[in-house]
């Protein structure tokens, strides 16, 4: 459609909003209530413009201007909000005339009359949309002589978010956000008219995605409590990087100042996380600044440690390693290491000549499905089967599933980016819940939105999937196993088969079992699902395809710990939380631990090397969909901490060898050869690649795991760091032991009790949370990197009360 904006003529697609036309033409209008990826509502009235369009006669011909012979432009009698106006053929938009400027001045003035002028103490100062717009479009003086509205300042909406009600300009972004994006309406306007304010009756905003409202608030009304009153916006160094908290590949911006991370904001990656991240990613960074971080290498001297230089530590390790036969050495890294670190680990293993190389946690089956799907495919799927608790396991995927239920495809991008006002989005859009089926062993959050929800017994996924596959093949199946009448199962299968884009999302509970994974694959084959497999940690896919894997199943991580290795190099792994493993490690002849903190394992080590967090390293990660994404180091003061390439460099120097992967650069030379592209040149939005499905994935050296009646469940708050993330812990509570009310009552347990309970023989300190989402007889405990999601044995009978919750009056 032809549209003229202030004399500039441009051709745009029908359905474009006038505000995007204005921006596309290179002009600017102010706006507060519009927000990319959310519905336009026309509440702030800032984007007013004079708009006209030609009209047609009854017969379909244009009404012509008598003097010019051109179609005559009829202007609307009043100014129109451009964000809610769709363009029309021949539309003329004027944003520069005096009338428009006057109206914009007036709207700025109206907006400011009740907005406090406390910019110097406001954390938004310097990055505030209102500040900018008032400067650009205001008159610079106020005629309002009365007292401004007084309302509660710094009201804690939750432990993570502080609300200043005086600063709110009622743009409704946050209220709409909760309804439109995560679908939990936990925040709303209260009262009406001039008294309207934002409030909640819920305790601590129960949603996994609350932090995003601090990003989208155009003023300083909603603030990230972790960075409150720390620095000013212009003082932060912004690092655009990728989160290593989960395998979604979510874009984040790390804001650092004087060597420490002050906050994390959401980055924009339209095909992955759009502009949303979950609270685990946003608020779970405080551990990186923990004062207990290791800053220098430590060398065991008798009972204690001594701080030494990297050279000294490396020389010690090199000398000791020389005493081992190559095959006695084990090298294991955590599955959120970058590809470059993977290359370094591989080079180290190669140098010492061992096949004992692995990353952990890792499932037995490959993470590269036969018919994979991308995150964008999930967002546009018309049938979804979710196996597991995606909301906690990979929260970014949860939001994209909800996108799919809305049925609005992702918008086309303009030169100015994501459309400011996507007119296809509406407030309170109906969600096609019938597109979503969720199967999990307890009531997961996503079931609220699902047309079909099945609660299977613990480790019952394989049976359910086999039964469904039987239904698909018109074979008999047990209705008790299906969890629904056969007719319903048949109609589900029919819907999946008829769908254009059916997708199955396979979570950790299924991947933990080879049988279940196989069953999932065969059901997928039977009805035509494409699969998304959820890796247990950020770079599981990447480390698998770069073959950071043992040469034989018995040399996997469990095997190394079990005694196949006499010397161990562990990076960011802490197996010694299990007392049995700790006992074995004590007899290890050489234990080198590379970690951020002096963990249980590090305390047993001969050499401890300071490691870097995910915010402090450069590298590449591969997200669950096979997207190669850059990880960039924020300017953080981490002392002498190095990532694994740094470790390999130091060891190489001690060996007198130039090892591959001795720097990010050298690792990338290797990767370039293997992958066929240069990771150095990766765009911030990443590169989506078809992944090779390797035949040679080495399955786990699985001893029949203890199948208990309980479950280790994923959690978006990484339990290994939760204790060091003070704000996140305050909001979510500590690592939880979740129980059914009756089970809790039977043992006299109440929400808030602190207990120590053996989980698979490992005593764990947990906080009791009573919840009817948990089936009777099942206890849920958080999964850790050492013990990923899956069935567990929780010995409630051996539970020890540490501290009882206070009696509530």
């Amino acid at each position, binding site marked *: 459609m032809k549209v003229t904006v202030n004399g500039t003529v441009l051709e745009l697609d029908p359905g474009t909003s006038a505000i995007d036309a204005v921006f596309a033409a290179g002009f600017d209008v102010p706006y507060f209530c519009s927000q990319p990826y959310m519905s336009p509502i026309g509440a702030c009235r800032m984007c007013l413009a004079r708009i006209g369009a030609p009209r047609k006669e009854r017969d379909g011909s244009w009404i012509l201007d008598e003097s010019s012979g051109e179609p005559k432009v009829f202007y609307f009698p009043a100014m129109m909000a451009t964000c809610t106006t769709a363009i029309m053929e021949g539309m003329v938009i004027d944003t520069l005339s005096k009338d428009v400027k006057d109206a914009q001045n007036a709207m700025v003035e109206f907006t400011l009359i009740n907005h406090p002028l406390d910019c110097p103490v406001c954390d938004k100062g310097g990055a505030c949309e209102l500040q900018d717009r008032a400067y650009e479009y205001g008159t610079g003086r106020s005629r309002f002589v009365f007292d401004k509205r007084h309302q509660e300042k710094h009201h804690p909406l939750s432990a993570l978010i502080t609300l200043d009600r005086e600063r709110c300009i009622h743009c409704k972004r946050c209220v709409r956000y909760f309804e439109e994006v995560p679908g*939990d*309406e*936990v*925040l*709303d*306007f*209260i*009262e*009406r008219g001039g008294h309207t304010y934002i*409030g*909640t*009756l*819920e*305790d*601590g905003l*129960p*949603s*996994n995605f609350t932090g995003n409202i601090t990003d989208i608030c155009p003023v300083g009304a909603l603030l990230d409590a972790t960075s409150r009153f720390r620095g000013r916006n212009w003082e932060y160094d912004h690092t655009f990087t990728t989160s290593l908290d989960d395998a979604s590949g979510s874009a984040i911006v790390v804001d650092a100042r004087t060597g420490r991370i002050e906050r994390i904001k959401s980055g924009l990656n339209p095909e992955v996380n759009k502009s949303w991240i979950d*609270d685990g990613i946003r608020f779970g960074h405080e551990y990186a600044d923990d004062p207990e971080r290791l800053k220098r290498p430590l060398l065991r001297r008798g009972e204690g440690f001594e701080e030494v230089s990297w050279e000294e530590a490396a020389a010690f390790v090199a000398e000791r390693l020389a005493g081992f036969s190559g095959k006695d050495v084990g090298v294991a890294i955590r599955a959120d290491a970058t590809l470059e670190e993977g290359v370094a680990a591989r080079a180290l293993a190669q140098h010492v000549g061992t096949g004992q190389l692995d990353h952990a946690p890792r499932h037995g089956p490959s993470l590269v499905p036969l018919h994979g799907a991308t995150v964008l495919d999930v967002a546009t799927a018309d049938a979804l089967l979710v196996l597991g608790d995606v909301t*906690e396991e990979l929260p970014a995927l949860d939001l994209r599933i909800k996108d799919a239920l809305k049925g609005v495809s992702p918008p086309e991008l303009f030169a100015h980016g994501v459309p400011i006002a996507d007119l296809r989005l509406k407030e309170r859009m109906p969600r096609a819940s019938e597109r979503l089926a969720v199967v999990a062993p307890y009531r997961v*959050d996503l079931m609220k939105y699902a047309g079909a929800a099945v609660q299977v017994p613990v480790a019952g996924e394989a049976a359910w999937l086999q039964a469904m596959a039987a239904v698909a093949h018109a074979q008999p199946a047990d209705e008790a196993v299906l969890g629904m009448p056969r007719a319903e199962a048949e109609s589900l299968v029919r819907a999946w088969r008829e769908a254009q884009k059916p997708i199955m999302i396979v979570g950790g509970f299924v991947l933990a079992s080879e049988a279940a994974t196989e069953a999932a694959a065969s059901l997928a084959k039977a009805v035509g699902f494409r699969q998304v497999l959820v890796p247990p940690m950020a770079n599981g896919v990447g480390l698998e395809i770069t073959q950071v894997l043992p040469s034989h199943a018995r040399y996997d991580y469990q095997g190394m710990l079990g005694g196949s290795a006499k010397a161990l190099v562990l990076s960011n792994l802490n197996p010694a939380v299990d007392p049995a493993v700790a006992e074995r490690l004590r007899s290890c002849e050489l234990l080198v631990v590379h970690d951020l903190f002096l963990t249980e394992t590090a305390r047993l080590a001969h050499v401890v090397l300071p490691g870097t967090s995910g915010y402090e390293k450069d590298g590449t990660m591969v997200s669950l969909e096979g997207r190669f994404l850059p990880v960039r180091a924020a300017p953080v003061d981490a002392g002498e901490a190095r990532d694994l390439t740094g470790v390999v460099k130091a060891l190489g120097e001690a060996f007198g060898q130039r090892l591959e992967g001795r720097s990010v650069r050298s690792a990338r030379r290797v990767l370039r050869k293997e992958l066929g592209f240069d990771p150095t040149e990766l765009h911030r939005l990443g590169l989506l690649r078809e992944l090779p499905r390797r035949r040679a994935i080495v399955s786990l050296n699985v001893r029949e795991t203890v199948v208990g009646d309980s479950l280790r469940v994923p959690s*978006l708050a990484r339990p290994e760091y939760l204790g060091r993330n003070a704000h996140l812990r305050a*909001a*979510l*509570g500590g690592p*939880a032991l979740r129980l059914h009310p009756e089970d809790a009552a039977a043992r006299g347990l109440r*929400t808030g009790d602190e207990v120590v309970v053996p989980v698979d023989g490992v005593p764990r300190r947990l906080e009791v*949370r*009573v*919840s009817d*989402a948990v089936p009777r007889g099942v206890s849920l405990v958080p999964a850790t990197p050492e013990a990923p999601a899956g069935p567990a044995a929780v010995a409630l009978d051996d539970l020890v009360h540490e501290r009882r919750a206070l009696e*509530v009056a």
Partner: protein
Amino acid sequence: MSSRQPLPTVTPFFADKQERLSEILARYPEYGRRSALMPLLWEVQRAERHVSEARVEEIAEILGLHATEVKGVMSFYGTYHEHPVGRYHLQVCRTLSCSLAGADTLADFLEDELDLVNGETDPEGRFSLQYVECLGSCGTAPVLQVNDTYFERVSRSRCRALLDAMRRDTLPEPTLERGGDNEPNAPDQEGGAA
């Protein structure tokens, strides 16, 4: 994420009123279940003279909503009360037509007579006084709304009589005033309506 347990609450309002509850829910189509929100609030308010937070949570539970949403809706409207009002909730319209008929003076009179200011309830819980906007009784102004009942053309003497009656808990039936041509007491209305 954390799903904290609600504190033990008072007996649910609708516990023994299931029939009434299902009658209200049945008024609306299945896809419009949320429409029952306002009727449920009315139901609670008529019985308890206000809607407490516990009731808000209960209604939210019934309708499958978050309590915040119910609160947001409830607080939008002027006639739902967060705190209990008196047995006689006196609402004085002070908008233009009533004001021209002396409603401001009526309001002052009530303030003096009851020793209450706008928005207050007396200690015995008998009277609450509230100024409201247009009640749609402009032709028969001034109007005093007592709970749900209109008393129109409230003159000083009528107002006194009403207050006395309420103090004795003998509120009279209102006479329905119509004004203009439709006055029920008009002498020849039967002839005119033919």
